[in-house]
């Protein structure tokens, strides 16, 4: 026992001079994400993307803040996409680890819980994939989000569907997830503004996998287009059942699932030709060379292809670097101000549509381009960008709080 103590003390003493003479400073960022459970499909890729960006920045010489040069490092916790767990993680990061910058945040429920308390804390919170509108609509001055709210894409999608010549639209959508209901409402409003008619709005619940009855009803109303939105699995079941009901009119959707996820539920025949109208997350075909470089680096580092949502987190790190360098200090108020006036960083993967030349609007919300993807030969093909209007949406966004 004694000898063990001695050993520990000697080791500590041996390390001490090294630490004292380290020339450069370290800035720790806290990462809170779903690393296990159902949300891990979004959270773990975000964690990897953050680490990739940090390694790239550190290898490139670190972050130059005024006189100092900082190397970035992370403290990571699993919030399991659970509100209680995420709140505990935030407390741990802020109170025990003394972290000033939080990032990650893939899922709406957990992130929403943290966002509701974070306004009173002296930290900056950078939100990734979590889509619930209230996270930034609430208007905390220390919350910044790279992913746009769902209804922003919904309006663009509504205009797009009308532009494809659809006059009578049958809508089938999940009824109890804010992201999807807000998108759907915005879509209907924009579609009707373009002169279209919604023949019926049918809904399904969180556990439903059988939408045959709703689809049969819509089929009877003979719309010339369908819009189906919800989580991937449910939308895939709806496409499968639409196929079984012999529905052939164009089917537009909003779910953002991968081709594999869709094919695990429905056959390629059932999926051929369906549309997904979503914000353009990472996609090597739709986005140019930066995206290809990102995919290559990510694959080398993690031996896996990046998921679409991972870029929201990757971009966070470059946003933070630019803001720190622009502020010239790590003082929170100055960094916040820098974030508000930030131009889109050069290295970001996604295509941001700045408002007044600034990446984040007054509520800390960023906007990206929206795209139309069509399922063809067992994969999603990028077809075209949607008519997005970030300035108009942002003006509306400033007037709401949830």
């Amino acid at each position, binding site marked *: 026992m004694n000898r063990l103590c001695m050993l520990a003390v000697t080791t500590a003493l041996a390390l001490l001079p090294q630490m004292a003479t380290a020339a450069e400073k370290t800035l720790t960022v806290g990462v809170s994400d779903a690393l296990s459970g159902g949300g891990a499909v979004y959270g773990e890729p975000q964690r990897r993307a953050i680490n990739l960006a940090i390694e790239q920045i550190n290898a490139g010489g670190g972050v130059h803040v005024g006189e100092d040069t900082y190397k970035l490092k992370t403290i990571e916790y699993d919030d399991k996409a659970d509100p209680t767990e995420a709140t505990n993680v935030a407390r741990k990061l802020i109170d025990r680890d003394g972290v000033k910058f939080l990032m990650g945040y893939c899922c709406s429920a957990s992130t929403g819980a943290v966002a509701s308390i974070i306004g009173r804390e002296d930290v900056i919170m950078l939100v990734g994939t979590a889509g619930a509108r209230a996270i930034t609509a609430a208007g905390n001055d220390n919350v910044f989000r790279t992913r746009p709210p769902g209804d922003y894409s919904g309006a663009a999608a509504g205009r797009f569907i009308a532009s494809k010549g659809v006059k009578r639209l049958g809508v089938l959508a999940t009824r109890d997830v804010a992201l999807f209901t807000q998108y759907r409402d915005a879509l209907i409003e924009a579609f009707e503004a373009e002169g279209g008619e919604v023949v019926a709005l049918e809904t399904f619940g969180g*556990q439903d996998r059988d939408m045959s009855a709703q689809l049969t009803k819509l089929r009877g109303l003979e719309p010339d287009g369908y819009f189906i939105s919800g989580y991937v699995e449910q939308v895939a079941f709806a496409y499968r059942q639409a196929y079984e009901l012999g529905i052939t009119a164009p089917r537009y959707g909003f779910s953002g699932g991968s081709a594999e996820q869709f094919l695990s539920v429905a056959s390629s025949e059932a999926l051929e030709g369906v549309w997904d109208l979503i914000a353009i997350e990472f996609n090597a075909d739709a986005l140019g060379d930066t995206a290809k470089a990102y995919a290559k680096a990510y694959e080398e580092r993690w031996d896996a292809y990046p998921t679409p949502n991972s870029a929201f987190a990757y971009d966070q790190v470059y946003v933070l670097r630019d803001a720190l360098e622009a502020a010239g200090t790590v003082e929170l108020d100055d960094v916040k101000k820098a974030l508000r006036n930030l131009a889109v960083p050069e290295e970001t993967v996604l295509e941001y549509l700045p408002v007044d030349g600034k990446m984040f609007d007054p509520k800390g919300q960023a906007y990206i381009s929206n795209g139309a993807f069509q399922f063809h030969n067992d994969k999603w093909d990028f077809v075209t960008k949607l008519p997005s209007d970030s300035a108009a949406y942002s003006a509306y966004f400033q007037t709401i709080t949830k």
Partner: protein
Amino acid sequence: MLVDLIQQLFNGLVIGSIYTLVALGLTIIFGILGIAHFAHGSVAMFGGYLTFFFIQQFGIGLFPAMAVAMAVGALLGVVLERVAYHPVRNAPPINAFIIALGLTLIIEKANLLVFGVDQVIIPTGFDRVFNIGGVTLPELRVYILGIAAFLVVAMTILINRTWMGMAVRAVAQNRPAAILMGINVNTVSMFVFGLSSALGVAAGVLVGALFAVAPGVSGGLVVKGFAVLILGGLGSIPGAIIGGLVLGVSEAFASAFVSSAYKDVIAFLLMIGVLLIKPEGLMRRRSNR
């Protein structure tokens, strides 16, 4: 309009036939032992997972995999009866109730541990769709109706035409008299649990082929099963058959003619209606015992 009506009827009958399979198992257990066997849905999911596992691992077809899973399910049912319910057969009913809840948790969690959290869809290869005058009949759904009908008929024959089936009904209708006839109530209990679990597994497989086997599905199945029991009459076999189909078709029609938001409310409205108007259930005579 007529096409839609027939289409909804078909949709409803397919779902209803699955409800019937679930309810048949619940009703014979309730009839014999007076137990609300909540774990039935988890047993059904276990069967669905197992079938998927057999198909994936051994490359056997759907029907052999389903048959083996039903046999394993029957065995599991017998074990549940012996280990969990038999020891409390003479205790107050609250004991069996608590055990039923505990079993539900245990089997549900065991499914998670063994088969994981991901949803599983049982591959069938039945992708064709038949179209008869505008009414579309997907191959898989037609087979599901057929399989359910076959199992219901087989079970009805078993219960009505065999000595074992007669013993099952005797115990359900008058337990002391059944003992006086020389019927071994223990054997009947085990048989009933085995039969019921095999039917539950069949329902789980059909759900897994048509939709998915996943955590959370079992709870919904059991709730629908008990709704059917109350509709058709507790412990009544014809009641479970009619009740299941009535519930399935009502849900489809409710979606079509009322609102899809109220689809799940329909089960409970029907239940309340039946309790108010014919509390003994659709298919039960007023008891004259």
